[in-house]
């Protein structure tokens, strides 16, 4: 009886399992297989070699990867600092205004990322909204902040803000007010309450928000292209070029595999480090 139930469960989940495997796993497998093909082939029916991976080092693609990871790290760190007070306000202080803020932030997601970034270009470029007005009124111009690493990081922070803000607010909402007050009552300073009570108890939100924004920023492409004017090349840019102009699928696949392994490893590490259950006070 029991075994029949189990079999029925398996059988009824089978169609969906097949769809999921086909749509998620199959493309990954194809990419993984292409990554070990010789350069510039369009078929998997070739003798595998690992030439694409050696190109990663010999032709300097690792620099793009390091730039992408570095900028993702910087933007994640900045997002944590910027979003903490905002998320704290949303979770504990703002009350009804939280809804307004939530809607405002979500609304920004309705506009395509590229269009929003071009908006920033028009705002920040020489002769644009800010510098143009400033020059018209004062007669003195200044250089545009566009086309540098700094503005790319700014773009990443701007675009991925919601992905940090909402998980963080959720995390902070999980910190009971009483524990904060109790720590304060027992003699803790504001900083001690923050580091010893709020940060550890909000850790699931911090981890989820950081992972989301880091993973998205590491694979981001538009910010470096539109705001950065390709001052530095992002790894995602290299991957796109390899698949399109370069007509080199094995190279594009190899670069993708490297990014996937690094980000996937990081995500698994992050999630395993934070014992979500223990923090929530649940027994294993």
């Amino acid at each position, binding site marked *: 009886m029991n075994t029949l139930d189990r079999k029925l469960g398996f059988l009824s989940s089978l169609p969906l399992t097949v769809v999921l495997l086909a749509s998620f796993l199959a493309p990954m497998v194809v990419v993984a297989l292409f990554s070990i093909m010789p350069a510039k082939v369009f078929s998997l029916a070739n003798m595998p070699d690992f030439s694409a991976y050696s190109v990663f080092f010999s032709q300097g693609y690792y620099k793009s990867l390091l730039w992408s990871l570095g900028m993702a790290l910087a933007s994640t760190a900045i997002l944590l600092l910027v979003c903490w007070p905002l998320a704290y306000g949303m979770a504990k202080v703002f009350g009804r205004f939280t809804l307004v803020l939530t809607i405002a932030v979500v609304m920004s997601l309705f506009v395509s990322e590229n269009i929003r970034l071009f908006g920033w270009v028009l705002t920040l470029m020489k002769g644009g909204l800010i510098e143009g007005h400033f020059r018209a009124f004062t007669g003195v111009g200044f250089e545009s902040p566009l086309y540098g690493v700094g503005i790319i990081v700014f773009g990443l922070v701007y675009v991925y803000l919601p992905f940090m803000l909402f998980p963080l607010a959720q995390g902070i909402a999980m910190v*009971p007010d*009483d*524990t904060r*007050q*109790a*720590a*304060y*009552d*027992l*003699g*803790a*300073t504001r900083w*001690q309450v923050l580091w*010893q*009570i709020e940060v*550890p*108890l909000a*850790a699931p939100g911090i981890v989820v928000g950081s992972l989301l924004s880091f993973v998205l920023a590491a694979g981001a492409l538009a910010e470096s292209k539109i705001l950065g004017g390709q001052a530095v090349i992002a790894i995602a840019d290299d991957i796109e070029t390899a698949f399109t102009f370069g007509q080199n699928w094995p190279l594009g696949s190899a670069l993708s595999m490297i990014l996937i392994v690094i980000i996937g490893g990081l995500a698994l590490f992050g999630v395993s480090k934070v014992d979500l259950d*223990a*923090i*929530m*006070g*649940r*027994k294993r």
Partner: protein
Amino acid sequence: MSGQALLRLEGIVKKFGDFTALDGIDLDINEGEFFTIVGPSGSGKSTLIRLLVGMDDVTSGEIRLNGARIDQTPANLRPTCMVFQSLALFPHMSVGQNIEFPLKLRKEDPAARRTRALELLDLLRLPRDYYDKRISQCSGGERQRVALARALAFDPEILFFDEPLSALDYRLRKTLEKELKDLHARTGKTFVYITHSLEEAMVMSDRIAIMKDGRFEQIAVADEIYGQPVSRFVAEFMGEVNLFALDTGTDGTLSSDILSIREGARLSAVTPGASGLLMVRPEYVRFAETGESYDFTLSGKLHGEYALGSRIQYELETPAGMVTVEKLREDRLSAREGDDIAIGFNADVTHFIGDTP
């Protein structure tokens, strides 16, 4: 009074907008006392304790601890601490880390901290191997003890309690009430306890303050509050009670529309000419056998009989409304619902609550 009160409140007022939550509270709490503040929800007792701990500011008035003003001192600098209703244990720390938290903030060295934490586990009768347990592995009663240990590790001048037992089941609550009283005796600390439960207050406290609408109605030892309440509110709040309107003449004679009064019956300690309420607790009311005579008598119909464990409660329908009588189980009455029953009681078991002009 020998020396100064440990904690002195003078004219404490707390307003939230137009609403006055605390309306001029004066109170002295003595060193080593177990003082309980009882009141229904909304009476202002939680507001008061938040002011005392420092989680809210007074609108006006002074709080003095050992003579020094503390009402402007933030909570983390006050030498007092509180056991929360929710206990507010830190779920990401072990039992030991929770207890050591205040010591760690004072940068005491780890070995000394550990020693103190283990002593406190002993004091609270928790096994020492609980030191490494997670909070989530502890039962309700054990958490209660951990919260107490953490507060005691802080070594406060006064330990405040905000209804910490209210979430527990009846039996555990009874056990912990006694343990808390015992702990108070062993530590010699000053405990200030807030509750809405009369029973809790009666079991544990040296003195009880009854709170209503942001003021104290009465502050006294438990027996006095129970036996000689100053107002109808206190009388009714402190358990079952029977109240009868009563007038006294200028010569001390008593008259009532409801009760039959024996010729010559007098109430001592009542100003002649006063009118008010005559109070008698249900356990002092007697079923009047024929031939017995009481200062006050009344008859009615038996309305219901309720078993309260060791005691039986009877409700009688009388011209004065429902009258409650309690008997020990062994003195159970053999009567049926609807039977006519006469009750009586003497002046010495009553208390007169004069009308406040």
